[in-house]
């Protein structure tokens, strides 16, 4: 079917860019150092993009996702730094890390539940809810940190963001695991199926006996969980937590999701598309940096690439998809 070709186009773009960068600067771009550094940077943005994608599939958006990551990261950092006295035994450090991870997950869970509750049960539009919670989470983060960085973690914790299994960085492994889990959840579970159905037509989905409120609730909760995973990598990699860590990922993640072929109106999108899109962005930004191109030109290139792929998809899709396709996508909330 023609629909899969969206992802194929992306894959070609990715391979093409990778080859291009390798040709232009074989010594630097293909060096193990660069490949590893790309593999370390990509997962944070990748995890946030996956979370964003799941939300966009329902026709919603989560503007609070990066501050969910920031806030849960900060809470985790506070637990870590408060309990860390330096030079404690390995067992004590392990326990502390477990406590911190739990704190991060619980915080993110609370953030996600708040979003999910307001969107699905109260019925406020996602963009308003998450705009509000974005500011709320940012505010709480600032209040907790007074704007500064929280640091002083056990050394063992840094392994998550900077360690290797063999020659593969740990963050990319975490990302791979979550990408696979997300794909399975979306494509092989009743919940995932409901997410796509809801994204296409919330009313008909509700009329089919699906508990759409619960479905949407879990969508925001799952997005927050992915944000938490990103937060764990982030604070470990920087060895500290700060309000604005990751805040630039917000719009980038939306761009990546759309670049990855997800319909911004909901109902269509694949994990593999998002993953390739993250790869494209990473190759592009690292590659251009290495070649020594001005930072601003890098942004221009990214913007141009995004528009280019959108146009390409438009022309490919035009032939195969009928008009009036969007008619039934009269969006969210109607059933709630």
């Amino acid at each position: 079917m023609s629909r899969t070709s969206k992802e194929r186009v992306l894959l070609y773009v990715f391979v093409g860019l990778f080859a291009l960068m390798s040709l232009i600067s074989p010594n630097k771009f293909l060096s193990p150092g660069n490949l590893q550094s790309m593999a370390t940077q990509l997962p944070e943005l990748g995890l946030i993009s996956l979370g964003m994608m799941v939300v966009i599939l329902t026709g919603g958006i989560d503007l609070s996702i990066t501050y969910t990551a920031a806030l849960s990261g900060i809470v985790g950092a506070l637990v870590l730094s408060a309990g860390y006295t330096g030079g404690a035994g390995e067992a004590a450090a392990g326990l502390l890390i477990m406590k911190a991870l739990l704190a991060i997950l619980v915080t993110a869970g609370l953030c996600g539940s708040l979003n999910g509750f307001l969107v699905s049960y109260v019925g406020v539009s996602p963009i308003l809810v998450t705009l509000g919670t974005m500011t709320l989470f940012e505010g709480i983060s600032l209040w907790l940190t007074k704007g500064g960085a929280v640091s002083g973690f056990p050394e063992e914790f840094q392994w998550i963001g900077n360690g290797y299994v063999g020659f593969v960085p740990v963050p990319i492994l975490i990302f791979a695991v979550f990408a696979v889990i997300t794909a399975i959840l979306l494509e092989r579970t009743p919940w995932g199926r409901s997410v796509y159905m809801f994204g296409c037509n919330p009313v008909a989905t509700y009329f089919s006996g699906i508990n759409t409120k619960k479905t949407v609730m879990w969508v925001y909760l799952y997005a927050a969980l992915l944000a938490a995973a990103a937060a764990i990598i982030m604070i470990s990699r920087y060895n500290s937590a700060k309000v604005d860590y990751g805040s630039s990922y917000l719009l980038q993640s939306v761009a990546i999701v759309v670049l990855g072929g997800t319909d911004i109106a909901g109902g269509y999108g694949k994990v593999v598309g998002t993953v390739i899109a993250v790869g494209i962005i990473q190759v592009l930004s690292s590659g251009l940096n290495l070649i020594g191109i001005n930072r601003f030109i890098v942004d221009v290139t990214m913007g141009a690439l995004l528009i280019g792929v959108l146009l390409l998809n438009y022309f490919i899709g035009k032939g195969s998809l009928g008009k009036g396709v969007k008619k039934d996508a009269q969006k969210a909330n109607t059933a709630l």
Partner: protein
Amino acid sequence: MSEKPFLQLKNISKTFPGVKALDKVQLEILPGEVHALVGENGAGKSTLIKILSGVEKPDPGAEILIDGHPVNIRQPLDANQQGIAVIYQDFSLFPNLTVAENISFGKEISQGRRLVNWNENRETATKTLEELGIELDLHLPLERLPVAKQQLVAIARALAFKARLIIMDEPTSSLSRGEVENLFNIIRSLTQKGIAILFVSHRLQELFTIADRFTVLRDGKYIGTYRKEELNEERLISLMVGRKIDFVRQSRSSRGPVLLEVKSITKKGHFKDISFTLHRGEILGLTGLVGAGRTEVAQALFGLTVPEEGEIILEGVKVNIRSPEEAMGLGIAYIPEGRQREGLVLRQPVAQNISVTMLRKLRSKLGLLDAESERRLVEEYMEALDIRPRLPQMLAMQLSGGNQQKVVLAKWLATRPKILIIDEPTNGIDVGAKAEIHKLLRRLAEEGMGIIMISSELPEILAVSDRILVMRRGRLVGEFTSEEATQEKIMNRAFMGAPAGLRPKRGLQGDRG
């Protein structure tokens, strides 16, 4: 009616990948006539309209003549400028704009205006509405008007840009009887001005009331054009389907024990004091004018609305139904009237649409969907209901109306419901598929299901139901057995009936209507 045609179409073909939607079709429309375009779903009516309105281009070799001169219609704007207006089923109006803006919008566009002239807009709107002899508040946003009034706005818009042919696609499907009458009066006044109407409808009775001539399409081919006098309903149907169809009364199944008991349920503003029973193996027809509260009662049984008072007793147990999920758990299925909006997820494949009600039961031990069981389930029901084409991965939007309805039926039959509520089961479905769905309902009743069928089409109600309830203004105003019911009795109740409690004590059954 003058004799020189306004519009002539000759040799119109349209080929889509793999399908010949139209094959050398012709059509001739005289000024001031009401021309009915009829055919089963998939006969090519919509494609022909799309070509006329510039949405689709015909295959090379087609000829379109207006006033005897060949014209090219390449986009909707061209059609407008040639004096052709289309009123689609959903009217294609702007719900958030005012009545005046909606009326004058088309005219502005077709004149290629760049700026909006508000005074002129109001004038145009006032003048057009006067011409039609209707009164509407110009400043009201369109969405605040009832459907019938919105339709009048759509007609006014067509008139505003001096349309000489107005194409109406199923214009009566969401109107009550009185509103249909009103629409017909307006159509008659338009034809006196020399405006031609191309009328597409499945309601044959209405066509015989309003149309002068009929053009019949079948499987994309032109069958013929006939004057009304040359036809009757039976002959028209046989021309449409190419075979004779009997719209016979279904044989009745024996009814079993009481399945559902509804005791004076009330929801303010929607329905009041509704009581009835439904037996196993029974088809209960629920009719009345549009807006009488039939759908609202059905939705209360499906958990879409919760009644404020009264009780619902299912197999002797009092139940509270607060969501479709709960209704489904109790064995209640509801097939809504809005097939495309509420019944189906059009952008998803047929398979997904069928299995959506069964997702939980299709889980394997790990909680994942079992692809093999899903495939079997989908195949089983596509086979059982003869859904064509038998392609589970086809998008629901690509199916014809009748097959779409079967998909909705399939997803609910898969849940093996005890009660099936079906709202306007054959709305916008062609004659052949109608009979098929009626037979299916009867077969389900024979297997012991209790069925509540809501319908505005009295022939359907009479042909299919075992017992008939009539609603009017949110009240139950009549009950008939199938033997005693006639169209007249039902209409009488639907228009003038008073609720049982307010009439002298004669009981519901013996009502003489």
